[in-house]
């Protein structure tokens, strides 16, 4: 694989996807400290939002330590070079949240839908595209669930709504490098040449780095990861590791590797509530194709109702649940407990 001289933009997820393993309890102060460290390390783009995006504060997904507005305001004003993005899932957040985030100073909005439901993003992408200079990104989650042709048709829909960048998102950490290659390559061939293409991985099958490289080779130029892997499931593509690999391969990221390693080791790891690793349940997410943020919900319901969290996750995969269906987990656990006479 010769990727020498390729230029990519890395996008850190610690302060958004990393909210899942922290149960949305990262404080404003912690966010500002970490974001400043990333700014100094030269990470170009970081995401700051509730784990489930703008408006995610809820019983269903968890109430955060502070509001999206408080997080975004505090982080945006401290950034020298790093730009800040926010995530928005139509059905959870609305265009009102989008406007608020723009007022807080974000440079990038990422509008996320399930991989087959891009048409619910029209309202939000069209509004975002109307803001001058707002980097407008369409983000198709659980992209392993459909084939390349269908996926690319949905990506093109987002492009038509106004996205200047679209993402293939492996929310379950299910994909293997070949899956990534065929999807990214077809997307690159069919999208407008000026449309940027991104890949967001999860490390549930330890494929974060390999999949991200496959994506770069097939034509993606934005790669998501998180320092120390802080993210849902077994975490996102561990960004400092990916940066080191990029350095060795001559892929240009513009990030200072050692400074990034220090932020991971000195700021992020000490903040973790539990080690972010491929434990039995995280591996099950990847193996069964389950949305990564279901992990802690399944563990909690398993404990409460005397079940195996792996059994719950496998069943959620069998039922083809999608992102956002966290409410299904307790309901399912109650059914399973009844069936087993617990």
């Amino acid at each position, binding site marked *: 694989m010769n990727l020498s001289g390729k230029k990519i933009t890395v996008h850190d997820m610690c302060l958004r996807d990393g909210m899942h393993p922290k149960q949305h309890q990262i404080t404003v102060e912690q966010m500002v400290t970490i974001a400043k460290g990333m700014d100094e390390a030269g990470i170009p783009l970081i995401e700051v939002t509730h784990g489930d995006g703008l408006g995610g504060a809820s019983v269903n997904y968890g109430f955060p330590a502070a509001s999206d507005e408080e997080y975004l305001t505090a982080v945006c004003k401290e950034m020298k070079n790093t730009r800040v993005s926010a995530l928005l899932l139509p059905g959870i957040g609305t265009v009102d949240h989008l406007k608020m985030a723009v007022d807080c100073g974000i440079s990038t909005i990422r509008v996320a839908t399930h991989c087959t*439901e891009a048409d619910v993003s029209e309202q939000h992408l069209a509004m975002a595209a109307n803001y001058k200079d707002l980097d407008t990104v369409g983000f198709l989650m659980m992209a392993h669930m459909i084939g390349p042709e269908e996926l690319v048709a949905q990506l093109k829909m987002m492009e038509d709504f106004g996205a200047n960048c679209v993402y293939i998102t492996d929310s379950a950490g299910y994909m293997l490098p070949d899956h990534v290659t065929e999807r990214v390559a077809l997307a690159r061939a069919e999208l407008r040449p000026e449309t940027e293409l991104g890949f967001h991985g999860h490390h549930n099958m330890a494929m974060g780095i390999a999949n991200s490289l496959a994506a770069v080779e097939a034509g993606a130029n934005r790669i998501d990861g998180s320092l120390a892997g802080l993210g849902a499931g077994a975490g996102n593509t561990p960004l400092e590791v990916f940066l080191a690999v990029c350095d060795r391969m001559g892929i240009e990221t513009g990030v200072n590797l050692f400074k990034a390693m220090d932020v991971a080791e000195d700021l992020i790891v000490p903040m973790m509530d539990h080690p972010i690793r491929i434990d039995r349940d995280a591996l099950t997410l990847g193996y069964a194709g389950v949305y990564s943020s279901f992990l802690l919900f399944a563990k909690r319901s398993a404990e409460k109702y005397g079940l195996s969290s792996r059994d719950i996750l496998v069943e959620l995969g069998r039922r083809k649940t999608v992102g956002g*269906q966290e409410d299904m987990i*307790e309901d399912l656990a109650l059914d399973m407990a009844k069936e087993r006479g617990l």
Partner: protein
Amino acid sequence: MISNKRTIMSKKVKAAIIGPGNIGTDLLMKAMRSDLIEPVWMVGVVPDSPGLARAAEAGLKTTAEGVDGMLPTMREDGVQICFDATSAYVHAENSRKVNEQGAVMIDLTPAAIGPFCVPPVNLAEAVNAKAMNVNMVTCGGQATIPMVAAVSRVQPVSYGEIVATVSSKSAGPGTRKNIDEFTRTTASGIEKVGGAKSGKAIIVINPAEPPLIMRDTIHCLTETEPDQAAITKSVHEMIAEVQKYVPGYILKNGPVFDGNRVSIYMEVEGLGDFLPKYAGNLDIMTAAGLRTAEMYAQEILSGNFVPTAA
């Protein structure tokens, strides 16, 4: 006047359905079984639409000229109730026109220009107010607001949140184009009709095959420790009320109590009239709309209410 007499004799109130799509056709099938409503007009905008053809076959008068095509004769035809199953964008204009002809408008779009109506919670109140336009909130609202109300009538609810999961096939283009309207209108209904001090609504669309039956989760946070026995009883009573017009409104699990959180897990299976059974979200809308119309019809037939031009 002649048409009014005829209405009283037949003990049914004549109605028009605007919008011959899936919702309008399902509503027509339900209305044809009603003891109180007689559908006489189907209004569309596409001349060769299958919905208009089906309605004509069922013996209704039809027009492809929109509401304007019905206006000249609707009084003569005795139409006193109209259902709007089109979209929020054209609803206000449709409503104004039929109100001028002395017909009550039952709004199945999320336009929400009239007061909200969720039958088991506030139908009597809505009808007593003699509003010439009532709004049926949203499908998610019809499926969940009764449960919020079942908790809030026992003790104060500081926060009500609902998650509606619908199959991809049952989420139409109108919902998709303006999904924010669903979340906003539903949240507002959770507060105004459900009785929660603040409300939040989430919608999830799932493309699984075979399509999943509509699922709804209702989370309430009570101000004080929940009275488990009273809430459980109230929830079961409310479910029985909804089942009178949506028999497939089923409690899957709960109420689950966890501190001040009360969680209720529901499944809504439709009757399968025109829409498939999994589309409980659409069925509960047409069933609620018809139930509201029947209550109006009772008031009209008993002489308590004479719809008059607004």
